């Protein structure tokens, strides 16, 4: 059978231009066209970054599109919920036995604590009324707006979530956000649009809140994100002379430092418990680590504190 071949000379190192594969639509277009398109997109991205970062001109459009995307996100969440519940149920079943004993003991301790606290609260209310004392605002001075978590896009760079409540519900930038189950501090609203808002979590590098030890209120500092990869927080700027006990509850101070200036965080929101406290010669303040009360990785819904009209 004759072979259908022709003699061809392979020219190595010649200046002959190889044509690009015509199968790819982008290869078909000229290199100039390709570079123009990509350059244009990069330029457009840079313009978007500049405008979005420096002004609020795009906020309306972003809010509108985010509102349009919301039903799709809710639908995807509902579709995936049975699977998530199944995973949670299995996980919970494994942990349940271990937790049961510990929780029973804790409930007993807390029951005794509640009785003491209730009498202290009553006494406090009476004393305040007698003295006409006006302290920093507390959680009771705010309305509570419940909101589901839409996206929980937490990464080492960006510790934030988006929630299904916005300016139409009274939510504004700076509103304080707490966890509905534990009452613990979650973070603050960073950006608010009509129906959605972005919450910067307490574990974000930009978050900071003045806090105090509930048991030893003289220990006032600032809670910020810890240096490690975990969700552990740091209670910084606490004087070395102040006493802080392991296991003490850390709450929002309701004021800035030791001065009279009020914080945007109402007093008394629990943040977590002290997991370690030490002094060293390098740090002029105490080294205090705080285990947060809130499990930031499994947030399902939040409560936004909105000032009462």
């Amino acid at each position, binding site marked *: 059978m004759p072979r259908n071949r022709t003699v061809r000379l392979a020219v190595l190192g*010649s200046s002959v231009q190889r044509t690009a594969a015509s199968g790819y639509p982008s290869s078909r277009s000229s290199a100039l066209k390709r570079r123009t398109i990509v350059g244009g997109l990069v330029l457009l*991205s840079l313009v978007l970054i500049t405008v979005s970062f420096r002004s609020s001109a795009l906020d309306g459009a972003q809010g509108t599109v985010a509102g349009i995307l919301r039903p799709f996100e809710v639908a*995807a*969440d509902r579709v995936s919920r049975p699977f998530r519940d199944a995973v949670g149920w299995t996980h919970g079943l494994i942990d349940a036995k271990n937790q049961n004993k510990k929780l029973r003991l804790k409930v007993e301790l807390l029951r005794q604590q509640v009785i003491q606290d209730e009498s202290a609260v009553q006494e406090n209310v009476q004393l305040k009324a007698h003295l006409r004392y006006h302290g920093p605002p507390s959680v009771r001075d705010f309305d509570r707006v419940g909101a589901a978590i839409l996206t929980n896009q937490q990464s080492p*760079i960006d510790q934030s979530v988006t929630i299904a409540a916005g300016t139409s519900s009274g939510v504004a930038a700076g509103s304080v956000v707490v966890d509905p189950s534990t009452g613990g501090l979650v973070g603050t609203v*960073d950006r608010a649009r009509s129906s959605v808002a972005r919450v910067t979590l307490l574990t974000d590098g930009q978050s900071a809140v003045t806090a105090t030890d509930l048991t030893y209120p003289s220990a006032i500092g600032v809670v910020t994100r810890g240096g490690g990869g975990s969700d552990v927080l740091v209670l910084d700027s606490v004087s070395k002379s102040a006493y802080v006990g392991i296991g003490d509850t850390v709450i929002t101070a309701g004021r800035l430092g030791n001065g009279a200036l009020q914080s945007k965080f109402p007093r008394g929101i629990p943040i977590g418990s002290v997991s370690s406290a030490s002094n060293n010669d390098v740090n002029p303040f105490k080294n205090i680590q705080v285990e947060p009360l809130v499990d930031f*990785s499994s947030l399902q819904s939040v409560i936004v504190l909105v000032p009462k009209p």
Partner: protein
Amino acid sequence: MDGVKAALVLFVVALLQLAVLTEYSAFRTASIVLVALLALALLRGSVFGAVAGFGIGLLLDTATLGTLGVSSLLLTVGGFWIGRYGETTARDRFHSPFLSVAVVTVLFAFGQLALQFLLGEPAPAGLVVRGLPLGLVLNLLLTLPAYTLIRRLFPPLELGDRVREVRLLG
């Protein structure tokens, strides 16, 4: 037609990323959007990859109320680069999707970090580096199913078109 199909695929993938994967803390470092985009770019070329990257980046930034353009910029460059790789040396090579995902996952993380730094926002390099190995492994695990599915939806272009790449003289 490919464009509409790609837009739909990327939209569904973005929803999967935002509403489902991020619910599980273990998967939070993974990015199925990145994997899907790179698969599309490998199969359809650089301009397709760049446009798809820009679109999906804009969608992500909008949905998360982030700074518009940050994800778009990184994903445009990533989609374009891997698209060029797909047009030139990566064809029919089994390892090309894995290599692309591995390289772009690392570069995307550092690119994001650099942009954060340039914008004057916190850029915790240590946290990013510590989270990178897990993200890399998860993305590589997602590569095979995602690439297989996307290859089925966007079959590679005909072989006849490819052999014209080298012209024999004589």
